């Protein structure tokens, strides 16, 4: 979506949805909802329900749960994925404050691995308790006083139909979406794209920014990050993304 129209839609949404919601939504269960197997109303506390005639737990109490942050909240999002090291410095600016750094914004990023794959649920959806690798190449950080977050990752690979990119979702401190966008990479001689050369795939059939359906309208190149470094020492990506906060 184009930035302007998206921002506009956020504004419109913010003011108009409550009315729409009341108009279109009742508390009735819609047909769609019935199709997700649910409404298990009968047993609210499975396992300890008195309707199942089992003995009550008789064990030492515990563990004592404490609040655990989402597993996205981390700076190093590599999770064992191999590739050229990349450090991403993303600064969030506030267009309502002369683009000064926006503190305490929540920044999610995600991108594909060297082969072009994202972390996601596979066919069965079953995950192993080796939780560490489940959400590879996805991370969340909160901006510092200067609006900066830094992630350690690998240089992304690519997949058919898209230029190399990093997804970014920026929220305010209370979790309200401010912007969903993507970061593009510079192309041509001497760039990181050329040096990495698409990892094992090469760059045959690669979609360049000018042909990419997300980046092709960005003629000014505001979505293109500054990327320095090389395959030996790793790459450093820097970009400033401005949002209305």
């Amino acid at each position, binding site marked *: 979506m184009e930035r302007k129209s998206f921002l506009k839609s956020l504004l419109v949404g913010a003011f108009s949805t409550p009315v729409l919601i009341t108009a279109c939504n009742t508390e009735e269960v819609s047909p769609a909802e019935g199709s997700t197997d649910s409404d298990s109303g009968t*047993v609210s506390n499975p*396992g300890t329900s008195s309707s199942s005639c*089992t*003995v*009550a737990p008789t*064990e030492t109490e515990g563990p004592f*749960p404490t609040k655990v942050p989402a597993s996205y909240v981390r700076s190093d999002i590599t999770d064992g994925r191999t590739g050229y090291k990349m450090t991403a410095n993303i600064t969030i600016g506030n267009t309502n404050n002369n683009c000064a750094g926006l503190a305490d914004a929540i920044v999610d990023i995600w991108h594909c691995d060297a082969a072009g794959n994202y972390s996601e649920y596979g066919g069965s959806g079953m995950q*192993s308790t080796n939780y560490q690798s489940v959400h590879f190449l*996805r991370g969340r950080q909160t901006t510092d006083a200067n609006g900066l977050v830094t992630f350690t990752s690998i240089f992304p690979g690519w997949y058919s139909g898209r230029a190399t990119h990093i997804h970014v979702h920026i929220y305010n401190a209370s979790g309200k979406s401010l912007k969903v966008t993507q970061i593009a990479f510079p192309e041509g001689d001497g760039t990181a794209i050329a040096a990495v050369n698409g990892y094992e795939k090469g760059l045959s059939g690669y979609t360049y920014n000018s042909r990419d359906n997300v980046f092709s309208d960005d003629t000014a190149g505001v979505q293109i990050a500054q990327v320095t470094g090389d395959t030996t020492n790793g790459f450093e990506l820097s970009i400033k993304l401005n949002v209305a906060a």
Partner: protein
Amino acid sequence: MENRVITLCYRKVIDANATKAWDKLVFEDSYREFKMQAQLYNQDNKYRSFAELLQHVPGAEQLHFLVSAAVTGYLQTLNEVVPDIINNLGKHFLRFNKYQFEIINSDLQNKSRHQVAFNFYSEPLVWHETIGNYLLVSENKAASSEMLTDLFQLQPYLSIYSLTTEA
């Protein structure tokens, strides 16, 4: 003699009625994460329920996976022991190393409609006997003369997930 080796699935449903501390944390954090992640699929603010997102927005089924990040940390605190399910001595005995998190229902405007579940898939167990309503099982490992067993009852949300017959 043939051994019947089973794995169990326990589907732990967590909703607004949660009373235990662990369940409440999962409820709160998964709802907050749902509200954050759903914005990605709801940029025009057209939808309010998870079911609507699933029906109308391509890719919204990824929300199961995306929201799970907020609660996998709580799974770690279980030390691979399935919660709630106890043997006839009143002790937790079921171990798992596979799970699946799912959003059953949710609603961006009404937290009380948020409902999620963990499906815990147990380690393999040998099913020796059925005694009344109880299943007599033991860990699936090389049998010596004496085997330690657990006796437990099938109950709502606990089911046999897979069955293997070994010679």
